[in-house]
């Protein structure tokens, strides 16, 4: 089973890297870029096929290490 995890900065947390990316895009001539927020994407291959159990384990992984919940949110998708 594969877990796909998106980690993003919480609303209101300044993202200077996202701002720099937005600036660079506008320098390249891409108009209409209103905001860029940069995050992380992590894939984990998990043994077992119980998706309820897998979700609980990945949630615990996010809370304990993968995300810093002071500044970040995370979203988990599971593929059987």
């Amino acid at each position, binding site marked *: 089973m594969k877990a796909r995890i998106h980690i993003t900065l919480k609303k209101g*947390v*300044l993202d*200077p*890297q996202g701002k*720099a990316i937005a600036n660079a895009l506008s320098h390249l001539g891409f108009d209409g870029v209103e905001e860029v927020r940069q995050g992380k994407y992590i894939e984990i291959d998990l043994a077992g096929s119980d998706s309820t159990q897998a979700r609980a384990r990945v949630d615990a992984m996010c809370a*304990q*290490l*993968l995300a*810093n919940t*002071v*500044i970040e949110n995370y979203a988990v998708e599971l593929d059987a």
Partner: protein
Amino acid sequence: MKSCVIVFPGSNCDRDVAIALEASSGAAPQMIWHGETEIPECDLIVLPGGFSYGDYLRSGAMAARAPIMRSVVAKANAGTPVLGLCNGFQILTEAGLLPGALMRNAGLKFICRDVYLKVENSGALFTRLYSHGQIVRIPISHHDGNYFTDAAALDRLESAGRVAFRYCAADGAVSAAANPNGSLNNIAGILNGAGNVLGMMPHPERLIAPELGGSDGRALFDALAEALQCA
């Protein structure tokens, strides 16, 4: 004073802080590898600066989960003084011993230069040889020193006087212009609620003697040595 310096793969200020501790206390600290599980009886634990685990995932994130950290957290919670400098501060926040997080510098650049700090709390174990409001010059050297926490936690820090150091101008003015990295309220260092844990981004261990270009960092180590000598 018996002190321990925790060494992680990628620590690079461990030897500097060991020299500073020995200069002030007369005793060389014990260097403890991150893979150990028990810290021996000691009066002070230091988490040094550097780039533990290459800053993988987030600065300090991997180090905060290293085997030795369980013992660091247990001893900190039992009252042992713990000092985290630069990467050590990042590790302390990741380990939950201090609130908040150190994010990428607002200007996105790695900054290595001397800054001025205002001593905001001179009553702590670590800062008692500075005077309240004293301006000291200490270098910073970091990419991720932008202190952030939520409004409620910031209010708790400020109202309890737990901000130990703030970035300021040479004349002591705490302003946006004197803030090198975008830290909330110009915060450079904070204490935990019990006052036995200090995390700070600047490097006092780099300025402990005139030959090094200044000695404003020395008083921090002298204060610890004096307070913990007979402990």
